[in-house]
Each structure stands twice: as C-alpha cells, then as structure tokens.
C-alpha cells in the first residue's frame, strides 16, 4: 500500500528520527565520557584530555581491591543463576503443564516481586536478614537476589515449555521412556535455548542489581556495582579517572554477558515478556 506523503507527515517523521538520533547521541556521549576519562592523564576545561594513559586501570584495580570484588561478584552471580535455574525451570514446567488448586496464587506470587520496586520489599527483607544473621554475608546477598531472579526465570520459561507439544512427551512415554529419560532426552534438549536465555538474562540483571545488594551486603560481600556506588559517593577522595576506570571494568563485565545473551534473545525480552516465544 503506497500512501501519498504530505509535507507535514514527512516533517513529523523527520522530527521523530531527529529525536531518536539526539537520544542515541547523548547516550553514546555519556558512555564515551566514562571511557575517555578512564584513559585520560588530565582532563580539565577542554574537549579532549591533554594526554592518554592506561595507568588508571592498575591504580583502580589495587585501590578498590577489584580482584576481591570481582570474585565476590561472580560468586554471587553464579549462586543466583544456579539456584534460580534449578528452582525456576521445574516450576515453569509445572505452571505451564498443569492446572492445580492455587495456581493463580502461585502465579501472583511470581508476578508481584517483578512489579514491586526493590526498595519497597528490600528494606523489610534486609531487616529480616539482619535479624537472622545472613545480611552482610554472601549468603544474604544471594538470598536477596533470588527474589527477583526466580520469578524471572519462571516467567521467561513458561512460554518455552508451552510451545513444546505435550504429544512428544506422550509419545516418549508410549515407547517406554521413564521420567529420567523423558527429562534428559526430550525436555532438556528442547528447553536448552530457553534455559540458557533465561539464565544469561538473570546473570546480566544480577550484575546490575544495585538496590537489593546494597541493602544486604557488608564490606566483604559487595558486588562490583555496589563498590562502584561507594566510589562515586565518595568522589573527591579518589581521582575521577580511577573511578571511571572501575566503571569501564563494570561495563565490560556486564557487556560480555549481554552480547552473549543477545545471541539467544530479542532485546525487547529483557524488558517485557515476549508475546511469541522465539524458536
């Protein structure tokens, strides 16, 4: 269908693209500022720094004890990914395949943590974890991060399970497959792309999850994003380039996983539940 293009509709379209271009330009400039500053010897009152260096990375690495922080970050992320996968995938299967009394309540229990902002439930949760002695430790941080992660895995996986024809499982049963073989040879291969996508997204989200980790972590259980917050908060104590070098390291740790994740999922899925599950 070819429509007549009036002048006003062309102007409107041009205006919208200009808006998008301005947004992308500013966004790129914000990220570029961080990167440029991390390589700058001195950057005051000019468009670009007066010289370039990589020394800030070495000083950030030792000043902020990034070796320890990165270890903690990946310990937290691995536990969160592992537990939410082990718990979330079976739950998604049950919710996609069966109708049972109280299913609506379970679904509501899965949806609410994703809709409630972390600060609202994070403060009561931190209170409980402090009185139970978990807060400040790695275990407390992992527990807090499970609250949004488990429902996320469940909700991402439900459409993946739904698109597997139950007849395939029935056929396997007819040919004598036991529950274990059914799971290992039929469900696992079919669900693998979905599970991988869900877990990668949980990883990316856990690396960037600030509020819950901030409220429940202690000095030895900070993840990189919380360490970055403290560095920015105390800006002025440390050279800005050093903080920016740390920010670039943080950016790299999440971007690697985001790039991997985007091979399996559509960017829209990071925000919204996809209408159609990807094949």
């Amino acid at each position, binding site marked *: 269908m070819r429509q007549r293009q009036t002048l006003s509709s062309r102007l409107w379209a041009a205006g919208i693209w200009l808006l998008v271009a301005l947004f*992308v330009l500013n966004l790129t400039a914000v990220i570029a500022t961080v990167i440029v500053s991390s390589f700058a010897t001195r950057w005051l009152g000019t468009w670009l720094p007066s010289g370039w260096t990589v020394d800030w990375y070495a000083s950030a690495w030792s000043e902020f004890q990034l070796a320890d922080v990165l270890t903690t970050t990946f310990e937290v992320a691995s536990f969160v990914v592992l537990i939410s996968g082990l718990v979330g995938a079976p739950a998604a299967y049950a919710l996609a395949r069966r109708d049972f009394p109280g299913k609506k309540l379970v679904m509501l229990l899965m949806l609410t943590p994703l809709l409630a902002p972390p600060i609202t439930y994070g403060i*009561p949760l931190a*209170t409980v974890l402090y009185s139970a002695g978990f807060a400040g430790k790695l275990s407390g941080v992992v527990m807090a991060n499970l609250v949004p992660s488990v429902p996320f895995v469940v909700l991402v996986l439900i459409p993946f399970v739904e698109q597997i024809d139950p007849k395939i499982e029935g056929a396997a049963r007819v040919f004598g497959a036991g529950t274990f073989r059914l799971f290992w040879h039929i469900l696992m291969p079919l669900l693998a792309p979905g599970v991988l996508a869900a877990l990668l997204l949980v990883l990316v989200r856990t690396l960037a999850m600030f509020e819950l980790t901030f409220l429940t972590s202690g000095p030895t259980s900070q993840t990189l994003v919380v360490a970055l917050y403290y560095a920015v908060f105390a800006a002025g104590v440390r050279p800005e380039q050093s903080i920016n070098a740390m920010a670039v390291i943080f950016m790299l740790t999440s971007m690697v996983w985001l790039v991997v994740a*985007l091979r399996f999922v559509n960017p829209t899925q990071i925000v*919204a539940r996809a209408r159609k599950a990807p094949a």
Partner: protein
Amino acid sequence: MAAAPSARAPFDGVALLAAPAALILCALFLYPFAYGLWLSFVPAAGGALANYRKFFADPFLYGTIATTLWLALPVTLLNLAVAVPVAMRVRLMRNQRLLTTILVLPITLGVVLIAQGLLTYLGPQGWFNRALMTLGLVSHPVRLVHDYWGVFLSLFLTGFPFTFLLTLSHVSGIDPALEQAAATLGANARQRFLAVILPLLAPGLAIAFCLSFVQAFSVFPSAILLGAPAGPTRVISIAAYQAAFEDFDYSMASAIAMLMGGVQLAIIAAVLGLRGLAYRGPAGGGKG
C-alpha cells in the same frame, strides 16, 4: 495407555515441581513483607500508629512523597509521550535490532553507571555544556548535576528505553491490516491513530505507564549521586534508607517502605481503573 498430559490431567505430582520456587518466594518475599507490615505497627516508642503519625507530622518526612511524585510523574509522562510516536515509527522499520540493542544498554548497565557518566557529561566542564555553549544556546554552563534536573535526565535516560521497548511490544501486537482498512476508508494519519490505534493501545499503555512509574518512583542511587539528597531530590526511598541504616529504626523504615508501596499501589489502581473505561478486546483483527 499413556495419556498425553493435558492441562486438565488429574493431580500427579508434577504440580509439586512448583513448590521449591513458591517456598523460596514465601520465605524471602512474602514473609519479610508481612513482617515489615507488622513491624511498622510496633514502634520503638508510642502506640501502634506512632510511626505513621510521626511521618505525617514531619514535613521533612511527608514532603518526600510530593518530592518523589514531582520527579516520577513528569518523567513517566514524558517517557510515554516520546515512546508512543517513536514506537509507531520504529514498528515500520524492517531492521529494529540495532536500535533496540542500543536502547537496551542503559537498562543493562544500570543506574549507578549512568549516574557516574552523567556526573561528568552534564557537569560544568562536560561535553553537554560545552556543546550548548559552542552552539551559542547559553553563555554560562547550566547547572544540571546535584540538582533536580540531573536526576530527571538520568531517569529519562534509563526510563525512556524501558518504556519504549514495552510500548513497542504492544504496538507490534496490533494488526497492521486494521490501520490499512481505515486508510482505505479514507482516514488520514491523525484519524487512524486517534480512532483505531489509540483505543487498541490504551490497555498496553496503561501497563507501560504503571511499570515505568514504579521504576521512576523508586529512584534511589541517582537521587543521591546526581541530585541534592538533602533538598530538591530527597525522595522517599532516601528517607526509608536513612531510617533503617542511619537511625537503625527498622520499625520506622518499614513504615516508610509500606507507605511507599501504598502510594505506588494507589497510582497504579487509579491508572488501571481508568483503563477499565477503555476498549477491551482483540487487537488482532479478523472476524470478531
């Protein structure tokens, strides 16, 4: 014969697979929430309602609700107002992947990184002010950081992509045939949007508004790092945090958290109530 498992199969234990997830959420979400609600009525001193009375008696505390709304509502409305026309355009694009990938960056990088970037970028020596001065739009650097506008812009930078991607997924769900039918019948672009697209989009927009609003309302790290946390951007989450981790009054902190949840719920209920007045039905077209 092994029956194919169907949605109406008798109870056979498969449903129990959902139990571990449900238990974890009961222990780590439902219980803390209930505990927080109970704790908020057991203040350190005074009667059951002492925390809430204290909150609404102290302008430094109750003022945070207005401060947060004054930040969250305009940002959410702006996000939505920009997201709808952009999504309407982008849905016609054949290759959306590059744009959506760029836009998902601020969401995955998180508010702390964006705040650190904006501190330099919007600062008096930053590229933003330099560009404005080079273009001759201003003669002196504009004060943007450590102020309302720094937080506003950071909420726009992370919130717009979120709202846009949500809106795009709703807009893409509308059958283009409906709009083409309207065009065949002689409706111009404005009429097609107002009479066909908007009514179909309204429920999706209501949800996008709620989710974006909840994100903006719980603004926390950028209000501290980029804003003036003692003044114009002292938002309610800062008040809750200070009660818990600076005054160690967990009872008061829980009360503020509950009030925060209550305000959000009220706004969401209002928006979804309005949605109830809008058209409900298929957006897929066809017969029906």
